[in-house]
C-alpha cells in the first residue's frame, strides 16, 4: 500500500516535469517559459527605447531592463519648433508607459560604472544589475574644453546648447522671448561630425521665422565652423535668402574659440550677442568612454555592423550617435532607431545561438522645417556590404526635396508621431 502511494506521487511529479518540458518547448511564445537571457539597455532615447521595444516584440521571453536617467522621453527632432514658439514641450514629450506595458522593466537611474568582465553595471546609489548582453545608447556628450570659457558658461546657464532636448530647450526659448527687438541671436555650429547635421540650419530658420514676426528688428547670426552648410545645402541657402534676407546672416569658417560674458571670440573677430547659443563639439556619451569603448579618433565607438557590438568589447552593443558612422551615415534619431532594430534582431539570434542576419539594411529620413509651415527632407538607404563589412548608400537612391513645401511639414509631424510610437510602444 505504501509502495503504491509512493509510486503515485512519483507519477504526479513526472507529470509536473512533463508540463515543464512542454512549456520549455514553447519558449519564445509563452511568457511563463524560460528566459532567453537578460538584456540591459542603458539610455532611453531613440536608439535605446527602440532596442528595448523590439527585443520584446521579436524576442518573446527576453528579460529586458531599460535604464534611463530622465522620467520621460523628450525628442530632439521637432524641438526647434518649441524654440520658435510653434510647439510646446508637451508636444515633444512622451512617457515610458508603453514600454512598461509590453514588459520592459524601466529603471530611472544613472549608470555610474560598467564592469564588462563581470557583466554587470552599477547605478548611482549602489544598486547593481547583471546582464547577459548589454546595449549602450549613451548619445553624445560635449567637448567643452575645446572652447575657452564654455564649460563655466554652460554650467551657469548664461550660454545654452539646447542640443539635448529638455530643460535646455525651455531655457533657450525663454532667452529668445526675453530678447529685445533689435537684439542678436548668435548660434555657433561645431565642425562635423555632430548630432543631427541639418539641425542647426533648421534652428536658424525657425528662430528667424519667430523673430521676423515678433521682434522684426532682430538678427540671427549663424557662425559655422564648417566651410559650408552640412546638409540640404541648396535648400537652406534658398530659405536663408528668400525668407530671411535681412534677418539671418550666415558665415562659413567661423569657429568659436573663446567665450567671455556675452562676448564671443572667433579667429579674426569678436562679437557680442543678446543670446549665445553654442552647439559644442561632440563625442560619444560619457558612459561609452568610462566603459572603455571609445576606440576611434578618441571620440567614437567602433561597431560590428551586423550585430552593433562594440569592436572594443564584444557582448556590449552600442547604437546611435555614439558610434563611428559608416560612410554617409548621419547621427540622427531615425538612424538610431534603425541601429536598434539591427541590434535587437542580432541579440535575439545570439541568445538563441543562431546565425545573425548577414544582409541588414538601414535607412534614414530627416525632415527640417524652414518656416513654421514648410519643410524639406534628406533621405538615404544603406545596404550592408559584406566585402567591406560596412553599410554603404545605394547609388542612385536617396536625395533631398525638390523645394520646401507644406506637404512635407505634415509628413515631418507624421514621421514624429510614428517613430515615437515605434520606439516607445505607444
Amino acid at each position, binding site marked *: 500500500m505504501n509502495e503504491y502511494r509512493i509510486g503515485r506521487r512519483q507519477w504526479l511529479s513526472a507529470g509536473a516535469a512533463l508540463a515543464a518540458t512542454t512549456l520549455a518547448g514553447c519558449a519564445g511564445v509563452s511568457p511563463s517559459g524560460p528566459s532567453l537571457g537578460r538584456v540591459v539597455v542603458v539610455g532611453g532615447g531613440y536608439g535605446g527605447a527602440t532596442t528595448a521595444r523590439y527585443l520584446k516584440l521579436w524576442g518573446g521571453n527576453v528579460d529586458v531592463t531599460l535604464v534611463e536617467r530622465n522620467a520621460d522621453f523628450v525628442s530632439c527632432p521637432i524641438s526647434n519648433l518649441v524654440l520658435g514658439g510653434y510647439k510646446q514641450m508637451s508636444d515633444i514629450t512622451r512617457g515610458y508607459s508603453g514600454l512598461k506595458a509590453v514588459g520592459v522593466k524601466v529603471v530611472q537611474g544613472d549608470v555610474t560604472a560598467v564592469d564588462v568582465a563581470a557583466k554587470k553595471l552599477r547605478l548611482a546609489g549602489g544598486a547593481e544589475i547583471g546582464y547577459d548582453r548589454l546595449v549602450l545608447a549613451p548619445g553624445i556628450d560635449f567637448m567643452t574644453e575645446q572652447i575657452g570659457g564654455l564649460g563655466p558658461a554652460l554650467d551657469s546657464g548664461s550660454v545654452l546648447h539646447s542640443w539635448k532636448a529638455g530643460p535646455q530647450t525651455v531655457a533657450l526659448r525663454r532667452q529668445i522671448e526675453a530678447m529685445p527687438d533689435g537684439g542678436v541671436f548668435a548660434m555657433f555650429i561645431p565642425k562635423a561630425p555632430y548630432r543631427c547635421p541639418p539641425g542647426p540650419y533648421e534652428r536658424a530658420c525657425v528662430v528667424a521665422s519667430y523673430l521676423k514676426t515678433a521682434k522684426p528688428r532682430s538678427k540671427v547670426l549663424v557662425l559655422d565652423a564648417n566651410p559650408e552648410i552640412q546638409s540640404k545645402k541648396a535648400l537652406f541657402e534658398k530659405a536663408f535668402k528668400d525668407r530671411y534676407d535681412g534677418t539671418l546672416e550666415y558665415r562659413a569658417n567661423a569657429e568659436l574659440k573663446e567665450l567671455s560674458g556675452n562676448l564671443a571670440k572667433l579667429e579674426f573677430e569678436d562679437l557680442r550677442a543678446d543670446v549665445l547659443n553654442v552647439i559644442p563639439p561632440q563625442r560619444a556619451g560619457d558612459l561609452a568612454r568610462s566603459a572603455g569603448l571609445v576606440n576611434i579618433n578618441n571620440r567614437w565607438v567602433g561597431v560590428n555592423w551586423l550585430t552593433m557590438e562594440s569592436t572594443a568589447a564584444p557582448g556590449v552593443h552600442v547604437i546611435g550617435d555614439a558610434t563611428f558612422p559608416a560612410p554617409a551615415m548621419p547621427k540622427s534619431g531615425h538612424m538610431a532607431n534603425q541601429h536598434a532594430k539591427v541590434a535587437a*534582431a542580432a541579440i535575439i539570434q545570439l541568445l538563441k545561438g543562431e546565425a*545573425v*542576419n548577414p544582409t541588414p539594411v538601414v535607412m534614414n*529620413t530627416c525632415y527640417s522645417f524652414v518656416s513654421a509651415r514648410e519643410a524639406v527632407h534628406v533621405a538615404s538607404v544603406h545596404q550592408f556590404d559584406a566585402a567591406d563589412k560596412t553599410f554603404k548608400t545605394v547609388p542612385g537612391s536617396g536625395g533631398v526635396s525638390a523645394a520646401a513645401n507644406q506637404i512635407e511639414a505634415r*509628413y515631418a509631424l507624421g514621421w514624429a508621431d*510614428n517613430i515615437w510610437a515605434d520606439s516607445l510602444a505607444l
Partner: protein
Amino acid sequence: MKKQLRIGAALLALLGACGLAQAQHPHLARNLAATCANCHGTNGHARGDMKPLAGMPSDKMIAMLGDYKSGNQPATIMHQIAKGYTDEQIKLMAAFFAAQPAKK
C-alpha cells in the same frame, strides 16, 4: 539515361532550393519591413495620415514601389527611398506587410 537526367535535374533543383534557403535569413523579410516603421508604423500600422502598409496586398505594394522606382509615380520622398531596395527585398517586404492584419 533520360531517367538519370531527370534525377540529376531534380537533385540540382533541390540543391538550388537549399542554396536559396541558406542564403536567406529566416527573419530577413521582418527585418527589412522594420526599416519602414519609422514613418509607416510598427508592422505597418501607421498613425495619423501616414500611409498604412499592414494588410496591403503584396502585388499592389510591389507595383507601387516599382512605379516609384521608375518615376511613373511622382512622390516627395518615396521615389528616392524605393531605389535603395532591390526588387527581391521589395517582394519580401510586400509579403510581410500583406500578412499583417490591417487593424492593430
